[in-house]
């Protein structure tokens, strides 16, 4: 049995969680997921300003902090912290280790960045059609910022078999971080579809960190103990493809069949066809049972052969947006907020500004649940203590969006009464980076595994 922990569900997750995973109980592998789609674009912008940047700096700081513990406890780390500059991340980690006089073997998994090859692909008739709309990538080629392939677990497993203590990847499928140590330790083959699927589902269960251990859990949420010290998840994996999801003893949170079910259903499509680079996992075969306190056992998982494609995510610029908010108070909070929205729209119209979209929401009335919630009833509405007016605009034209941001604050003095600007100041204009999902034949790209310092 091996223990694989997750210490980071996204870039921006708890900085303390990975430290607790290392120090509060036994684990063999620590996996850290830093890369959401939007993260790649943020890293791109950072690297445009500084060629040394482009990776998750939090990761380097973490390694600097815990490296002696990792060595003492023989814990190996797998992280997609490399972002768009895995070699820069490797150098920073090796430097941090050298400063502490600690020798460590760091591997990189690269080859996922196909930004510079897009022209060549399109010329050769690989259209990289949008998986949702069917449009060819050529439609937005001028706006493309980057494109990365999602690799699977085998190159990561290869890095482990070469002795890496820290594996830094660019884009790999989130679940691959968890599957890789199973492949390495148990010698699973590329055609062990059921076992690979089990590893993928284990990865899916823990890749969002504490969202499987009682975080964001709807069942009896008020009774979930000590969320302030919530334990992050650990997979205890067996060579036959069965595993348990648990957390360190003494930590807060709760691991139950219910908390696990919520996470299994998070961000999936057809549950019988969960397509990953390594296999097609079937979530309808999962059998769960409560094997003990804070311990759920997974059995029965089946899967099917992988497809001949990798998924590609391309990011492209898609105009600008800005969002402004004001809070209106009792009496007639909602009525005032709606009136202010009308006044604002009239002024934007008088200025001749055109937007691709204007969206108004009323927080406190029905913003998130919107139409399914309906309008506040006539009995409730006059008594609402406050309602936040939130207006967003989107346009190709930066100047129009910029002009919009000047029209929010004046409403405090020249619109309906009983209003505050929330202390937020003028809204910021943001450049929109959108995403283009596509497929590419596996034969077109190859993952590259390298290890430092070299054996010599």
């Amino acid at each position, binding site marked *: 049995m091996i223990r694989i922990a997750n210490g980071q569900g996204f870039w921006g997750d708890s900085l303390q969680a990975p430290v607790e995973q290392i120090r509060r109980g036994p684990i063999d592998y620590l996996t850290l997921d830093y890369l959401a789609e*939007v993260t790649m*674009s943020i890293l791109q912008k950072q690297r445009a300003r500084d060629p040394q940047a482009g990776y998750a700096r939090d990761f380097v700081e973490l390694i600097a902090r815990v490296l002696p513990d990792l060595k003492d406890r023989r814990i190996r780390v797998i992280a997609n912290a490399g972002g768009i500059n895995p070699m820069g991340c490797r150098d920073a980690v090796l430097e941090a280790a050298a400063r502490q006089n600690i020798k460590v073997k760091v591997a990189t998994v690269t080859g996922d960045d196909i930004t510079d090859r897009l022209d060549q692909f399109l010329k050769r008739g690989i259209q990289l059609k949008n998986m949702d709309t069917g449009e060819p990538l050529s439609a937005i080629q001028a706006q493309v910022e980057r494109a990365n392939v999602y690799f699977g677990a085998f190159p990561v497993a290869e890095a482990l078999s070469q002795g890496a203590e820290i594996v830094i990847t660019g884009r790999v499928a989130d679940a691959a971080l968890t599957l890789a140590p199973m492949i390495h330790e148990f010698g699973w083959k590329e055609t062990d579809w059921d076992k690979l699927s089990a590893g993928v589902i284990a990865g899916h269960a823990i890749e969002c960190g504490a969202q499987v251990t009682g975080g964001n859990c*709807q069942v009896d949420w008020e009774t979930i103990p000590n969320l302030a010290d919530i334990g992050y998840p650990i997979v205890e994996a067996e060579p036959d493809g069965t595993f348990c999801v648990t957390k360190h003893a003494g930590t807060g949170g709760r691991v139950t069949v219910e908390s696990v079910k919520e996470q299994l*259903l998070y961000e*999936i499509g057809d*549950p019988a066809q969960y397509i990953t680079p390594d296999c097609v996992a079937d979530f309808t075969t999962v059998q769960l049972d409560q094997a003990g306190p804070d311990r759920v056992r997974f059995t029965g998982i089946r899967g099917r052969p992988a497809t001949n494609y990798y998924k590609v995510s391309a990011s492209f610029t898609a105009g600008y947006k800005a969002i402004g908010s004001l809070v209106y108070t009792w009496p007639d909070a909602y009525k005032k907020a709606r009136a202010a929205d009308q006044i604002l729209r009239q002024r934007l119209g008088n200025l001749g500004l055109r937007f691709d979209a204007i969206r108004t929401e009323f927080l406190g009335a029905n913003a998130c649940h919107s139409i*399914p919630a309906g309008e506040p009833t006539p009995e409730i509405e006059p008594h609402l203590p406050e309602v936040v007016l939130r207006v967003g605009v989107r346009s190709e034209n930066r100047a129009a969006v910029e002009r919009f941001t000047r029209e929010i604050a004046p409403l405090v003095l020249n619109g309906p009464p009983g209003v505050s600007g929330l202390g937020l100041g003028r809204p910021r204009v943001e450049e929109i980076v959108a995403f283009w999902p596509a497929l590419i034949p596996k034969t077109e790209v190859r993952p590259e595994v390298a290890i430092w310092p070299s054996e010599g």
Partner: protein
Amino acid sequence: MAKRRLVELAHARSGDKGDLVNIGLITKKPEDYPILVREVTAERVKEHFVGVCKGAVERFELPNLGALNFLLHEALDGGGTVALKADPQGKTYSTALLRMEIEV
């Protein structure tokens, strides 16, 4: 037959993929699963999210987990980074679905 809100029988989690929202709906008691299958059809979910979900609604069954998975297409104002919504990743569509009234 009596009207009950889904929140009494089920829990849920939702997330995004581009302009698509998925909602996993899970029965609290295994014996209620056939009620969910009968009552919470793709059509009813489409109707519940009318004006929010501009595309199709698909439903998948997971009897092993006592759960249904719904895919709401064109439901996020263009999706994560493009959307102007307060909930651009559709995280609260789960609880919005639990407002639905069904016949039990």
